[in-house]
């Protein structure tokens, strides 16, 4: 049997083994990053999700100021954890716009009453259409959007206290 054929299985196994070693070594990331980073926010118009706050449209995000778009829901447990961070960001002057996924007006009222309201507007995304259009796959997620409506970055999961300053700086630096 030729040399190549004899040793090929071992060589192939080493290749496979390396792939499996990589698989073990790589950090476990089940998060799916949005591929819309760098692209324009998709066109949408969402009705108000709860009384007292206007709805959200993509045109609002391209009006010349950068925004932080927060995709959340009243039934989402980690969203409660992120509420103080959102408040801090809003207090720093960053306009925080909300998109509530699969939510009810009354439940949202209760959530905002309990956890504070950093939002200038909350759009109702009842069938996750806008969430999908932005490439988001869960709640909570946040997107920094510049004044022209371009998505600059994505935060998956609740915003940690140590990330607040970075996000505020990023929004301020954006045009």
């Amino acid at each position, binding site marked *: *049997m030729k040399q190549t*054929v004899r040793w090929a299985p071992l060589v192939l196994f080493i290749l496979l083994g390396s792939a499996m070693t990589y698989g073990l070594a790589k950090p476990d990331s089940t998060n*799916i*990053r*949005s*591929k*819309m980073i760098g692209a324009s926010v998709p066109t949408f118009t969402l009705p108000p999700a709860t009384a007292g706050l206007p709805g959200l449209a993509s045109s609002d995000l391209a009006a010349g100021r950068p925004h932080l778009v927060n995709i959340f*829901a009243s*039934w*989402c*447990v980690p969203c409660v954890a992120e509420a103080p961070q959102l408040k801090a960001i809003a207090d720093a002057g960053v306009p925080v716009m909300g998109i509530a*996924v*699969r*939510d*009810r007006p009354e439940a949202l009222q209760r959530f905002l009453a309990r956890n504070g309201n950093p939002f200038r507007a909350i759009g109702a995304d*009842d*069938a*996750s*259409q806008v*969430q*999908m*259009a*932005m*490439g988001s*796959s*869960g709640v909570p997620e946040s997107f920094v959007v510049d004044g022209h409506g371009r998505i600059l970055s994505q935060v998956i999961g609740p915003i940690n206290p140590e990330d607040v300053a970075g996000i505020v700086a990023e929004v301020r630096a954006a045009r």
Partner: protein
Amino acid sequence: MTRLFLALALIAAPVLADSDMPPAPLADTQLPDPRQEAQAQALMETIRCLVCQGQSIADSNAELAGDMRAMVRQRIAAGEKPAAIRAWLVRRYGSWVTYDPPLDRVTWILWAAPILFLGIGLWIARSSFRRRRA
């Protein structure tokens, strides 16, 4: 061990973070046109659920999967082609979201594998045969 439970429990619906809202129309309702429904079904079986441990959106109880099914059906009913819907999703989530890998620079080996394996096998096997005497 808790991870075993969690992994298995995802086959059943996780009860922890649910919205309580009824499913989107068309998430669990078939399209009236059977041909369109068949197209939609075929597509849904090949789109990966974003929040599950390896299921298609056709096979998942997750709410986001339901919303994705609703979107697929809605678009097919509106006349969009399955390939366009798949492309829309891939544009947003990357190739990870489709179970049908594209054919490009990165995946050509995958698609060529059947021919490659057969060819290599035939080449190795030819030494097992002798010339056929008349």
